[in-house]
């Protein structure tokens, strides 16, 4: 079970949170002007990276806030979290294994 650093409440167990999808996806400002493919890119297509991933979490059984988390999908290491109105946490340079 992950230990997730809520920017408002501190580190709490994963059971208190709900995953809310990939972060950094903005709703297009001009939906009527987009092609079906462009709309599909916004609604359906996700990066699903092996490695660093910017994601949203909701502290559902806590403060009720959505916030940003940067997590490594391979190691589950969490590089940090940030409130929605701040930039996502920086990722340290990858060390070569």
């Amino acid at each position, binding site marked *: *079970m992950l*230990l997730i650093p809520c920017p408002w409440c501190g580190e709490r167990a994963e059971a208190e949170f709900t995953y809310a999808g990939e972060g950094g996806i903005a*709703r297009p400002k001009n939906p009527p002007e987009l092609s*079906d493919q462009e709309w599909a890119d916004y609604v359906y297509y996700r990066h699903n990276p092996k490695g660093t991933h910017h994601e949203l979490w909701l502290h*559902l059984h806590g403060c009720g*806030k*959505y916030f940003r988390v940067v997590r490594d999908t391979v190691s*589950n290491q*969490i590089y940090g979290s940030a409130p*929605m109105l701040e930039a996502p946490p920086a990722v340290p340079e990858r060390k070569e294994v």
Partner: protein
Amino acid sequence: MKAVAKYRLPSGGHIDRSQLLQFSWGGRTLHGFHGDTLASALLAHGIHFVGRSFKYHRPRGIYTAGVEEPNALVTVGRNGRMTPNLRATEVLLTEGLNAVPQNAWPSLDFDLLSVNNFLSPFLPAGFYYKTFMSPAAWWHKRYEPMIRRSAGLGCASGQADPDSYERRYAYAEVLVVGGGAAGLAAAHAAGQSGKRVVLVEQDWLLGGSLLARTGETIDGEPARAWLAKMQRELAAMDNVQVLPNTTCFAAYEHGMWGLLERLRHHGTEQDKPNAPRQRMWWLRAPRSVIATGAIERPMVFANNDLPGVTLASSAATYANRFAVKPGDRTIVFTNNNSGYVSALSLIEAGVEVKAIVDTRPAPSGAMAQRLLECGVTIFPGHGISRARGWHDLHHLRIAPIDEEGVAQRGGVLMSCDSLAVSGGWSPVIHLPSHQGAKVQWNEEQACFIVAEAPAGMAIVGGAAASFALAQAVQEGATAGASAVGATAPAYGAIHGAEGALDCDSIAWIKGKRGKAFVDLQNDSTAKDLALAIREGYESIEHVKRYTTTGMATDQGKLANVNAIRIVSKIRGLPMNEVGVTTFRAPYTPTTLAAFAGRELDDFLQPERITPLHDWSVTLGAAFEPVGQWMRAWYYPKAGEDMHRAVQRESAAVRESVGFMDASTLGKIEVRGKDAAEFLNRVYTNGMLKMPAGACRYGLMLNEEGTLFDDGVISRLADDRFFISTTTGGAPRVLAWLELWLQTEWTDLEVWLTSITEQWAALALNGPKARKVLQPLTDIDLGHEAFPYMRFREGQVCGAKARILRVSFTGELGYEIHMAPEAAVSVAEDLMETGAEYKITPYGTESMHLLRAEKGFIIAGQDNEGTTTPDDLGLSGLCSTKKDYVGRRGAERAGMRREDRKQLVGLLPENETLVLPEGVPLGAGELTPPFPILGHVTSSYMSPTLKRGFAMGLLRRGHKRHGETISALVKGAAVPCKIVPPMFLDPDGERLRGEDA
């Protein structure tokens, strides 16, 4: 006093000879001592043969002395406490213990299915996939039951478990897994810092390998004295918790650990009748010391599964810890130095060791010298080509071997009754591997080790292939100290087992005849592995699945490394290139009931009840669960079944008046200067121009353009709304609205508050609704003063209330919202003033029927994941003048195709028929296979229409009104007329109701 069992040594062991215990084994009454396992007590009586193997039903004996046991699976206990598949090597002997063997019929000695052993040429690896192919219909009826009967483990009792299981969440700075020498040193060093330390040991005794050996010293004192001192000192540290009988079965992310503590052994239930049987710990410990030791590997040779064959270290454990000798004449077969350690240990305990067979050509050193002095014959460069016997071991064929391990001509036949084997050691690296640690082959010690420990973990002692006692203790102390930022204590002289195994790469003696087992529990042989590779299953993961090697309840603790070695030899690849299969939790079988804990029966889910729940109970209501809510389903009168109750309730609403508990509706208050703008973006219809005091029915879509939820929006003031959601949808809708506010439209000033439980609600419906309610309220209910889709605040029965003039039945309707405390008295007053109109409480079933007559959808029932508002005939609710969530999605070409599934009404030609909900729709006779054009979503018998009617989703449905379609009911095509989904009062005249 009973006579001492024949194979019990006269002295020694960690057993209490003053406590003689009686137990039952397959109906035989036997005796053992406190401190015995079931296995050691059986061995003390010379009983090796305890079970039949999984596939071939071959006789099997006790192979090990620990959790890795593949053969000695037994069923223990009686009635609801009966537990199958326990390893006899882990079961503590208690007074009156009842144990029986498994997988043998009619008896262990005479098992009919042992014929499988002679049929084995027809049961090769993958035989399931090759043999039981056709006819397909035979699979469920014939093949599967047959295979299940012949390849079995134990059976469940079929009775409820009378015991309780607990769960605990805990935190520690340091977790030490394993209570052997290394783990004790680690916990002691960490504990001295005063920080919280938890030490877990799966056995009921601490000590690990120290319990199996004699003559070792630590810090200048005998190992036993050191062990006692460590236990004393750890017990004295308040910050250290020692948990024996506890398995750390899994390592999860970020320092989370799963521990299973066994609080009561079988047969001790009467001691504390209310104590839980097991406790599941979810422990968060950022730092850990993995001191899980190592497991000895078997040797692979023909008939290596005969009862009487054990691991060499296990034989030493039985002799030293349990004072039981494995036999009268023992032979040791080894490919490494630890076989010599075990042999010496057996001799010291008083066991006759006849010979050592060593695959290595020139074993030498002090241990070999001492064994020769004891009169033991050593066969260097030899292997056992075949063991002989049936229910027990009689002879061994000892043959010289070549460099590839192939048995040569010559050699000797030697008689014996027990064989102790050692094929090297495998560190227990399961926990680091659960966390993705990379594993690599260590040529020097011939084992897989962790290349780099995961963050926060230190791996010490046998688990790190540090087999020397001195090294294990020192590593443990260092890791324990550094986990708390201290320096390691210095230990004095430690004298014990040497570390270097000098392990030979030969662990498989290739002979001409007989089965050489790799996985004893799943009956897979070296030949099976070779076959799998010949058939193209080269990856170790494929070999594993095709041969089922390592897939039994022991998860290949003995088998996997030997299997990898054999694959590496056959394929000519280095061990690291063959690799290991994935280690998965749990480490050992873990009781499902312990995962469930107390979350059973009534405690499985919280149950939400409304303020009117008890009132409905007194009226005799039947309830149905809707999400977590219990909702009144119908209110049967004496002698009524559900159908008759629903017909009566529904007719009453149409003809006069009725009311329903609507408190479970999700309710959210939306407040702030941008509230209207916000709702305008999330609902399909316009919200900006809605005046205070108005209500609107609205749809919410997701960005794909499909229906997400629906409800009524009421505007209380310029900056204040309250919206209702479906009963089950409230938490989801609230979280979703918050998502938009918090992540996308952060500039909007809007606050959302859940008020579902702050407001009880009653839905009063029927032509006489106004007559019933008017006397109870100060609000003028006149049709012009309080029109349809309006909202008023006032008093009802003296309580503050909000009334919405909305209707989910098509009749004049008022939704009365009030404080939960007022709900019962309002309901009672309605019953009183409504008495002259025969006012009728109705449940959810009648509500469903009434709304369906009007074609109103239930979100979640009449739509599916791809249904758009247009498919439901609700495009009129979707504004074309603004953007809203889902608009662009619903405008995609595929969402507007004419052949989409669309909502229609269905009238079966047989008017008495009620179509079952969910049945498929198609054209014509519906002879399978036929194209499914849709399905029935809602279906009822209408007391008003006096016929069955339904709604459904049907391809091109909007354009097919008037046509006929077939519904598949119990294999027959039932013709139905397609009509618009509106069965009653299409112009809405009934909404006006009667004047007060």
